[in-house]
């Protein structure tokens, strides 16, 4: 379809390739469904629950004791902004899940404040996701998900659950908060999977 908008020229990008429908921002917009939870690190806890109900837990000190990685990735929000070369520090999910016994295919991430989002387990492994606690060399701000958030940069950013408190592994795929509110179950920015059915 070619509906030209009379008089629109647009602001061209400088050759950087972005997923379809995205525009570049140098700011760091905030989008969330409710008030920002303020979680003190001494109260923070992260739990992985397997499909058989077995639980693995880390408190803040245990998370800090794990080997951390510096991560530089582009991020893409479903509301159409993309931010290039963002820098984070965090613990790889490969590290956290190394000793977890599971045959499950699906994960529901749960957050302080009640937010949830679903992700296939294979999308969290092999260097694709982290529990991030620093952004740009500083502790992660509460409004950006601090003290710790899931970081899954290859999917739309609502999958990178802020204020993450745990993962629940499952053999069946359930839908999370935005996924039940009309957004795509998987959310690949390069395939422009914004809304259910895309």
């Amino acid at each position: 379809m070619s509906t030209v908008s009379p008089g629109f020229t647009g602001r061209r990008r400088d050759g950087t390739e972005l997923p379809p429908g995205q525009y570049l921002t140098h700011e760091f917009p905030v989008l969330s469904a409710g008030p920002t939870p303020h979680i003190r690190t001494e109260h923070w806890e992260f739990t992985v629950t397997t499909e058989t109900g077995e639980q693995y837990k880390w408190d803040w000190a245990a998370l800090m004791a794990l080997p951390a990685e510096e991560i530089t990735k582009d991020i893409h929000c479903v509301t159409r902004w993309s931010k290039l070369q963002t820098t984070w520090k965090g613990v790889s999910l490969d590290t956290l899940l190394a000793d977890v016994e599971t045959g499950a295919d699906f994960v529901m991430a749960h957050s302080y404040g009640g937010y949830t989002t679903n992700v296939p387990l294979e999308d969290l492994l092999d260097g694709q996701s982290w529990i991030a606690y620093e952004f740009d060399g500083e502790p992660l701000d509460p409004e950006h998900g601090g003290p710790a958030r899931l970081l899954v940069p290859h999917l739309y950013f609502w999958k990178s659950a802020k204020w993450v408190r745990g993962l629940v592994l499952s053999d069946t795929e359930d839908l999370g908060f935005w996924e039940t509110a009309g957004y795509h179950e998987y959310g690949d920015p390069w395939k422009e999977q914004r809304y259910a059915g895309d």
Partner: protein
Amino acid sequence: MWQVATVADVRRETATASTIVLEVPDWPGHLAGQHLDVRLTAPDGYRASRSYSIASAWSADTIELTVEKVPDGEVSPYLVDVLKAGDPLEIRGPVGGWFVWKPGQEGPVQLIGGGSGVVPLRSMLQAASGTSTPMRLLYSVRRPESVIYVHDLKELAASDDVDVHLVYTREAPAGEPRVGRIDAELLEQYVYKPTDGATTYVCGPTAFVEAVADLLVAAGHDPARIRTERFG
């Protein structure tokens, strides 16, 4: 699923904001608070899209958007200053299933908007008019000239259905002594109490939404009853 709407009218709201009235054939209807995606295409095929809240309640086949011009923005200056009646506009939607108010939803409704954050709240006000749902609107603006929907709001304020209160952050009209941001005291005075069972909708620029939502939680409001929408 993009579709081409026709601009029926563009109405100036303030020096920097316009309401765009769209004729949309076969509009499926929407819930108050939902938004649309708008897509612009240059003659050479270059495209840009942004999200805009729907400003009106569902009525037959026109819908309204209200856009505030962002200085140096790519899309909003076009929508506010260039777009005119008769032009086509590509849209997709309605979108969003959380920041919405549904007729029949339980309890009173507290609306708190900052700047163009009043847009989806106006849709809720329209959708609730004539129902028995009590609504209150607390609307923060820089100065009297920045008030969007002045006429609607005057009418609403004069009726018994809705309680409207404006907060001026930079410059107040004659007779209004208070100039300043929303604070705990003001919330205490103008919003439902935590025990009233209200659902609260807060919309506007990120810093505004953060500040107001934090104040509400600190005042004892249940975070689960506070819905927020941040415009970027």
